């Protein structure tokens, strides 16, 4: 009887002992994955983690049953990302579209935090190179090796507003050494916006969109938009989505998205992310 009462009376036993929680707390888990869908997200890989990413985009859904709603054809990108440090990730991948190889460096300059000197947002920078790998032997006029390359620089600013809601803006500058016509600009700016809404502990709804500036008039290309779900199962994150972008690196989805959502030219796609801890904490 007395003992039960005692707990209550001793409620102040920890009083005067300030919490030993570090005074600055980083906000974690803004996304389930390092990509929103197409774009780099606010998330970094943890140090020593290798992320094997398998990306698939099927054919257009509106081709009907004869093409099994696009599932008969597929474009893929296989990639490896690696967390060098808490704030630095490198990645490399190869996509079947144009047989392109791409690599990137992702740096987190600021991580959202609470407590002393809190940071309201996270700030990240991504730099990448893309290289067209397909054979140009039979193409005239002859193209130079440097024509295969494209470069991009991206800034990501975002905030995990609540446990469920994260929003980011990710403007990007892209330079292509080779463009299709003289009317096309070698430099492209695009304003990206992305976010997620957590529907349950393991499932979120994600949206990823770019408005591409300076498209030449009559350009057959559209702004890329992807909408889908992240499903996290433990070791894997599945990103199932619909998109109009076939390409899976920044250069191709910004400048070579020929499908139009309004025509129903959308594809089903998925990203599978499988993480391996290569280097363990001591």
């Amino acid at each position, binding site marked *: 009887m007395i*003992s039960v009462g*005692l*707990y209550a*009376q*001793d*409620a102040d*036993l*920890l009083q*005067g*002992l300030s*919490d*030993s*929680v*570090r005074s600055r*707390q980083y906000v*974690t*888990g803004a996304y389930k994955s390092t990509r929103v869908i197409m774009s780099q997200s606010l998330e970094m890989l*943890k*140090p*020593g*983690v290798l992320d094997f990413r398998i990306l698939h985009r099927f054919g257009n859904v509106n081709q009907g049953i004869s093409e099994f709603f696009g599932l008969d054809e597929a474009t893929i990108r296989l990639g490896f990302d690696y*967390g060098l440090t808490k704030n630095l990730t490198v990645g490399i991948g190869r996509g079947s579209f144009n047989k392109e190889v791409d690599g990137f460096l992702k740096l987190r300059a600021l991580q959202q935090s609470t407590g002393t000197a809190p940071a309201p947002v996270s700030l990240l920078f991504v730099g990448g190179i893309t290289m067209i790998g397909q054979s140009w032997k039979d193409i005239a006029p002859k193209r130079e090796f440097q024509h295969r390359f494209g470069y991009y620089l991206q800034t990501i600013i975002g905030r995990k507003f609540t*446990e469920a809601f994260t929003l980011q803006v990710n403007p990007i500058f892209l330079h292509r050494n080779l463009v299709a016509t003289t009317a096309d600009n070698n430099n492209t700016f695009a304003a990206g916006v992305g976010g997620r809404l957590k529907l349950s*502990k*393991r499932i979120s709804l994600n949206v990823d969109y770019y408005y591409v500036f300076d498209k030449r008039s009559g350009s057959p290309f559209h702004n890329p938009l992807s909408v889908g779900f992240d499903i*996290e*199962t*433990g*070791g894997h994150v599945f990103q199932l989505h619909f998109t109009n972008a076939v390409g899976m690196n920044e250069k191709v989805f910004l400048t070579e998205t020929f499908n139009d959502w309004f025509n129903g030219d959308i594809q089903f796609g998925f990203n599978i992310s499988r*993480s391996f*801890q290569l280097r*363990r*904490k001591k």
Partner: protein
Amino acid sequence: MKRKFIFLLLITGVAAVHADAQDRYFTKTGTIRFFSKTDLENIEANNNIVTAAIDIKSGALQFSVPMKAFEFKKALMQEHFNENYVESDKYPNGTFKGRITNNKDINYKTPGTYNANVEGDLTIHGVTNKISSKGQITVTAQLLEANTSFNIAPADYKISIPALVADKISKTVQVTVNTKLEPFTR
């Protein structure tokens, strides 16, 4: 006021009152380790910033455990622990509030190791359960060492483990507590 009084007594060398001020022992660097063992995978996590306090007069005992400070060997485990299992944004601290039921058997003035039976309320993931555990208290000249180990079931704390990974996480998790408490003087 009281502090000044004690200070006054101390500098005048009256040690008797000093003991009163030392009823409370504390630490901010206690360690808690938990361990889950299955055939597929062993999961271990360590927390080194546990706050604990003990009132040797009444035997009352209290712990506060910042859940985000559990360090795992695999980064993904740590992420899942915080995001999916204990939901540490929503429930940042685990707490224990209880007492040593055989406090009178422990002679805090005589160095040695004593068995201590502890019972109280453990709160994790917003769920409170009564637990009891056997531990040891070691009295040294300057410190109290309080150590214990007990098992808890995640299910008791409404921590649901999906079928897909259920084989990798043990139904009961072993919790080991090691603390070195020093007299609270202010």
